[in-house]
Every structure is written in C-alpha cells, then in structure tokens.
C-alpha cells in the first residue's frame, strides 16, 4: 500500500515509522525544513520538506497513485484542505483526517473525507464513561460514525422508570437492545419494566439523541451540575 502522511509532528512521525515497519511504501510531507531534516536523519529519505496543502507538492509526492492520504497535522483547516485536494484533485481512494475540534467531524464527513479520527472525542468518551452524569454516554461509534452505541443510566427523575420499554416513545432510527441490571446484561423485551439504576443500552443515530434523552433521562434535577 502506498500511503502519503502529511504532517511530521509526533503523530505523523510515529505513523510513518510504524507503516514502514509493516512494509508499506510511505512518503511523509513536513513543511518545516528543520523538522523534515531531523526526521530524515532518523528514519531515512521518505520526507518531502514541503507543504502538503499545495497541489504542486502533493503531485511531487505521488498523490495521483497514492492509495491513502492521511492528514495528521495539528490544524483542522489544513487537514481538511489536504484531504479535499487529495480526493478531488488526485482521486485518492481513501483520505483520513485527524480532527481536533470534535464539532468539525460532521463537516469533514459531509465534505467527503473518508475517515475521521478525533483524539479529543476519544479522550472525551473515556472520561464520560467514568463520570456519572445526567447525560447519555457514548460507548462507541458504528460504521462511519452515523450510528452510536449509547448508554442511559436511569436515575431518580427518569420518566422511563416503572414503565415497560414497549411503552416508551423511542425515536425512529433508534433501538433499545439490552439493559444492565445488578451487574448482568438482560435482553430488553417490549414488556421489560425498567427500574431505577438500570443501564439501558441503545443503538441510534446521533440526531435521535435529544429525543432519546428526554425519554430515558428526563430533565436533570436542580442540584445536579452537568459537565
């Protein structure tokens, strides 16, 4: 596989190293000459010391025959432009972008970036799993990120407590599939009555979240401070 990595920071550096070790053909683009020289000294002549946002340099790097372009600079705007240029100008089949601001994920996807990797989102997800809040917890993203596995911890004030799951107005495109009760997983049937302390696991589209939250969590009580 021929991979062009753009951005020679820590992520780009280790990514390039790992890819070479697994036998891939790799070119790393780093516009800072000093940093480019340093990487060349350490891992050999795979570095193009130019800006990967510039069409001419992407061409020099061989973008027209690249299988993958991975844009991993620290700037979202650069990563977006690198992927768009690769995709639309050089017909690169697969583009991958690092996204720092999780809010940009949707825009990147909408504008045709094939894969999006957000370290901020991943760390946020780890934190959310540890801290109980009156929110839905995102356990994992499925497919290309349109679907998510979500956990709702039912606590006092939840409108779902005491009701059968079949009686809840679950938004279309969303499905409740299990409940974790006293440490064990129980399949959720339409007649399963939900209890205080249940953790309900759902799969759904991100845009169903508000409705799902209203059904399962309800309004947070006054003394709870959200994050």
């Amino acid at each position: 596989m021929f991979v062009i990595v753009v951005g020679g920071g820590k992520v780009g550096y280790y990514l390039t190293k790992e890819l070479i070790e697994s036998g891939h053909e790799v070119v790393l683009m780093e516009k800072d000459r000093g940093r480019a020289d340093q990487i060349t000294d350490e891992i050999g002549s795979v570095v193009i010391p130019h800006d990967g946002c510039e069409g001419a340099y992407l061409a020099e790097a061989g973008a027209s025959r690249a299988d993958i372009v991975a844009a991993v600079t620290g700037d979202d705007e650069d990563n977006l432009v690198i992927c768009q240029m690769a995709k639309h100008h050089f017909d690169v089949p697969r583009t991958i972008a690092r996204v720092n601001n999780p809010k940009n994920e949707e825009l990147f996807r909408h504008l045709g970036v094939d894969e999006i990797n957000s370290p901020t989102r991943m760390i946020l997800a780890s934190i959310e799993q540890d801290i109980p809040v009156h929110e839905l917890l995102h356990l994992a993203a499925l497919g290309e990120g349109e679907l998510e596995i979500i956990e709702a911890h039912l606590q006092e004030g939840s409108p779902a407590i005491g009701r059968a799951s079949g009686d809840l107005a679950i938004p279309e495109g969303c499905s409740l599939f299990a409940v974790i009760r006293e440490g064990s997983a129980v399949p959720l049937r339409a007649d399963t009555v939900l209890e205080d302390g249940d953790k309900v696991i759902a799969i759904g589209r991100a845009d169903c979240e508000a409705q799902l939250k209203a059904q399962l969590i309800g309004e947070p009580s006054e003394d709870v401070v959200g994050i």
Partner: protein
Amino acid sequence: MRTVIIGCGRTGAVLAETFESLGHEVTVLDTNTRAFDRLPSSFRGGTVRGDGTDEDVLRRAGVTDADLLLALTEGDNRNIMAGQLATEVLGVKRVIVKVNDPVRADAYAALGVATICRTNLMEDAILTFIGEPARHLTGVRAPTGTHPGGDHHETGATAPTTEA
C-alpha cells in the same frame, strides 16, 4: 444586508468601513483584538474576538443570519474552512474566500466556493498597467462545480453586490 468579515487586516478593515457606508450591518472577526485598531473610530459594527474556523465562534458572530461572508485572513486553509463551515453548516447564501494560492483558488471554485486570489489580481493589475492583456477574466472566481450543499448557492455573477 448583514455582512460578516473574518480577518481584520488591511483589506478586512477597509471592506468593513466600505460595507458600513453602503448601509450593511457589519461584524468583524479576528483572533487578535489589536487588529480592530485598524477600524476607523466611526465604525459602529460589531467586533468579535475568535477563530473563524470554530463553528461556535461563527455562531456567536451571528453568521447564521448573514447575507454575505468574507473570509480574508492570511491563511488560505483557514479561509477555505471558514467559508465551507458558513456555507455547509450555517447556511450562508453568499460566501467569498481569499485563497492566495492560484491552484487552490481554482480547485475550490470548482468545488463550489467563490474564491479571490491576490496573486492573480496583482498579476493582472501589473499586466494591464504595462499594456499586456490580463490573464484571468474575473477578480472573484465564481463557484463552477457542485459543492455538497451547492443547491442553496447564489453565485456573485448573477447578483451584483453594490447597488449604491
């Protein structure tokens, strides 16, 4: 007309004053508040400190209600991303972004974003001054291709911006 200008450099500041004199309601955005010193003391529009590639900042600057957005910072990619956020996420109908790299200026016009390229503008100005024909037909490259959200686009070509 509501106009939002991202980047309060010389061009941004001059255009802020011009559009205000044309009766627009103008908001200027820059990451550095000192940049607003370039605005004339008579400027009555809004100033917002923040990064134009951040959706929250753009919302705070009232971009959702803007009729026209100009992205004029010194970073081509910042301008491109701000312009695409405004078009695709915030639904602004008319967006012009400054892209000084001619290759990217062409590429993004083809992707449905109106671009203006200082490099080509200067090239044309100099050629014309010395009596040679200009190389580029238009100052602003109108969006030619389809942007993902291209349906709601209004090109600058069919609707003149100044009618004063």
